[in-house]
């Protein structure tokens, strides 16, 4: 199983939010690579190494998944569910990153074992700081899981 703990997979359909998030992650400087996907189905293809992401060496499993909830097609909660239902993938930390603070979204995310739930704050500095905090916690402080096939 190809696994690269210092890679981040960002699943975000809003191009602008993805750009802001990438910018902050790059600024934090702890991630090796950030791959951005814009819909749920693609995200599942990526982590299950299917379709155009079948090349495991080219698309190793990331050390962290940042997942938006509102996605076209398969939504973030369903993506989360499928990841957490898998015996190996379930160990990868998944952070829900969304504008929604709806109680039902929070509850559903944790019911499917999200590792964290964070809202995107309004305000450039606040947004950047939050992403950088996520990045330094999960990429620097946290010991990543050991994935065995």
């Amino acid at each position, binding site marked *: 199983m190809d696994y690269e703990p210092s890679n981040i997979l960002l699943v975000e359909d809003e191009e602008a*939010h993805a750009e802001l998030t990438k910018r902050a992650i790059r600024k934090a400087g702890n991630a090796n690579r950030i791959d951005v996907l814009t819909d749920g189905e693609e995200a599942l293809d990526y982590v299950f190494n299917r379709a155009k992401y079948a090349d495991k060496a080219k698309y190793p499993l990331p050390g962290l998944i940042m997942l938006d909830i509102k996605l076209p097609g398969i939504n973030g909660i369903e993506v989360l569910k499928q990841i957490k239902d898998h015996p190996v993938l379930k160990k990868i930390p998944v952070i829900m990153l969304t504008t929604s603070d709806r109680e039902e979204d929070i509850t559903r995310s944790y019911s499917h074992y999200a590792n964290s739930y964070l809202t995107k704050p*309004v305000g450039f500095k606040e947004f*950047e700081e939050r992403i950088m905090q996520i990045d330094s916690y999960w990429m620097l402080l946290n010991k990543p899981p050991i994935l065995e096939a």
Partner: protein
Amino acid sequence: MQKKPTYEKLEQRIQELEREAVRQKKAEEALRKNKKMLAEVAAKNEELDSFVYRVSHDLKSPIVTIDGFVGALREDFGDVLLEDGHKYLRYISDAVRKMELLINDLLDLSRIKRVTRKKTGFSFARLVKDVLKALQPQIKARGIVVNIQENLPVVYGERRRLGRVVDNLLTNAIKYIGKENPSPRIDVGVEEQDGQKVFFVRDNGIGIEKRDFDKIFQVFQRLPSAKKQAREGTGVGLTIVKRIIEHHGGKIWLISEPKKGSTFYFTLKDKEA
């Protein structure tokens, strides 16, 4: 001799009863119609709340983008922007801030009836003190004396939301204390009215005309006198307060006089048996 009037009386009584039965039937019909109408209005209100919630929520996402890129522009291209460019970016940021406040208030407003949180018993004095802590900078800046009555009772309800009530009432009192007020003062307390505990937040600020008493609890209503005193404000704050109090089975009203100040009163239900 007596038989005839008795029979007539009986006839009369029967007619009265028949008329009464018709009246009752009509009243029942009217009641049924009113109940149906009330249910329809309640359903429409619920639908409207959920619509406001969805729209406000969707508006949050573009705001994150606008403010995010204003920040990125400042950081990445700030040195090549002329003074006017910086001024324009500031205008955008200020507008975003106002919109964010409005969206958050609308979200809170639409959530009150849809989501009920756990009710607990807690010290009202502690709640007031916690809220006041966050308001200290404004209170200090205006030199306001705040007096909290001793021995405030324990209240029963959703602590966070009742905190919002106290916060909004105190914020209002501070905002409209009056720029020229020589001895600005706010009192928070409880008194007995008709055997009922009535909480109050009293200020000696600019006050409100009697004709506007109802208006101020309506959504998006900001009185011209209020706008003159404070530019910020979404016109949703007191509507939120009223909804939270009503959600707790209480009532809110005010007594006020221009240039003398306002007192906002509210009741809360005791813990249900």
